[in-house]
């Protein structure tokens, strides 16, 4: 647990000082909302369109973070140092997933209000409790799958290409569940309740991939 805390602290400190990922991700999502406004030629969106715009933006913003996640470890010898330390290798997985989860949460704290302000028809306030639940579950899934695919891709020559290609198909079921769960929340007539079925699917998907990553992650760090 100490190793996880130390690694997480290092990642957050690094982000706080260098500001490599989070500002880029947040700015990217704002720009994407503007692009959606012109591409769809609409001033407001609601229902399934709103949920689609929100999730596509968040997913692609997450890809930016996923691409950068292990770059510093590889380029500045973080992997070697970690391999020398007498700690469990799973610590790296947990710490990186937690870091990505925190990055995503910060990005959403900026992106979701911006989305409500710029594009959403009606108020976001009635949808907020349900939306937060969906966002938290989806963030866990994106963090776990993103860490796994980033770790697979970081040793390749073309990691910026390989990471999204691996991560996006794995994220499709997550996107289905999140988009379906968000859809009734963003209807123009006022929010309906969150479909529990999709919340359950999200939770289950998170759990399965957390176990899977836990099982295979050790092999990605062996030297």
């Amino acid at each position, binding site marked *: 647990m100490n190793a996880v805390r130390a690694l997480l602290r290092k990642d957050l400190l690094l982000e706080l000082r260098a500001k490599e990922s989070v500002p880029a991700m947040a700015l990217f999502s704002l720009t994407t909302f503007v692009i959606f406004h012109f591409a769809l030629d609409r001033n407001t969106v609601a229902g399934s369109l709103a949920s689609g715009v929100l999730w596509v933006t968040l997913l692609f913003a997450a890809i930016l973070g996923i691409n950068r996640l292990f770059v510093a470890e590889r380029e500045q010898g973080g992997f070697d140092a970690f391999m020398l330390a007498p700690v469990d290798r799973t610590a790296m997985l947990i710490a990186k997933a937690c870091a990505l989860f925190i990055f995503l949460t910060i990005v959403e704290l900026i992106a979701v209000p911006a989305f409500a302000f710029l594009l959403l028809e009606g108020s976001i306030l009635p949808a907020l409790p349900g939306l937060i639940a969906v966002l938290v579950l989806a963030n866990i899934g994106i963090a776990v799958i993103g860490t*796994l695919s980033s770790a*697979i*891709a970081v*040793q*390749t*020559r*073309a*990691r910026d*290409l*390989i990471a999204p*290609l*691996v991560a*996006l*198909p*794995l994220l*499709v*079921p997550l996107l*289905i*569940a999140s988009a*379906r769960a968000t859809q009734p929340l963003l209807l123009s007539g006022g929010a309906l309740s969150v479909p529990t*079925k999709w919340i359950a*699917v999200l939770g289950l*998907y998170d759990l*399965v991939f957390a176990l*899977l990553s836990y*099982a*295979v992650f050790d*092999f*990605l760090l*062996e030297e």
Partner: protein
Amino acid sequence: MYGKGMRPLAIGTFFVLTGAFALVFFWVPADADQGFIQKIFYLHVPMAIVALGGFIAGGVMAICHLRTGNSKWDLRSYVSIHMALVLAVGALITGSIWARAAWGHWWVWDEPTLVSFLIVFLLYATYQPLRFAIEDPEKQARYASVFAITAGAFVPLNFLAVRMAQSLAHPRVLGATGGSMPSEMRITFYVSLIGMALLFITLWKYEMASKHTTAQLRNLRRRLLGDDSVAPTGRSAAPSTVLPARPKP
């Protein structure tokens, strides 16, 4: 070593597949709704099932590779996924043709099996680029195995998720092995499925034998003529099968 039993297997595959096609064209009754085009079912569905089976088999072989550390398992897993990818392309093309004939569109988004198959195909399409992008052979094998295991576990999960997204709106009319199928159709379908599975195994063995023989040839050449006689293998997506150079006495 992989060549052993190739001939009877190949002959058996030939006869079962020919028999399956004979049954399809001359014996099984045409579908009442769709007529002749429905016969593509006996090609399309076995291809898809065998491709998915090949993906999952590749994942299981990858588990064996990580557990034992024996690079033979990596080669087996690679060949299995490679062959499954070829069959998957076939299944997508035949499925598209069938969709065009039966529903009037080349692609139908509300058929969950089709959509999940495409997602699985897109994921596995990254397998070869991933391998190609890692230069160190040992690392390449290990990372490819991790990918194969993750993707193998993803196959059933993805089918479940996509089906849930649509099953309420669209009942499955064309249930593949539903109990409503007449017995002639069912028998023909099973024969086609066995034929396709045999074809997969034959092709798998064939590629394994070919890779193995090439490697042996290289090693013999090197022992007889010295290290300079063999051209260095370039970067490749296929696992390296060449034994390490022997130290000179």
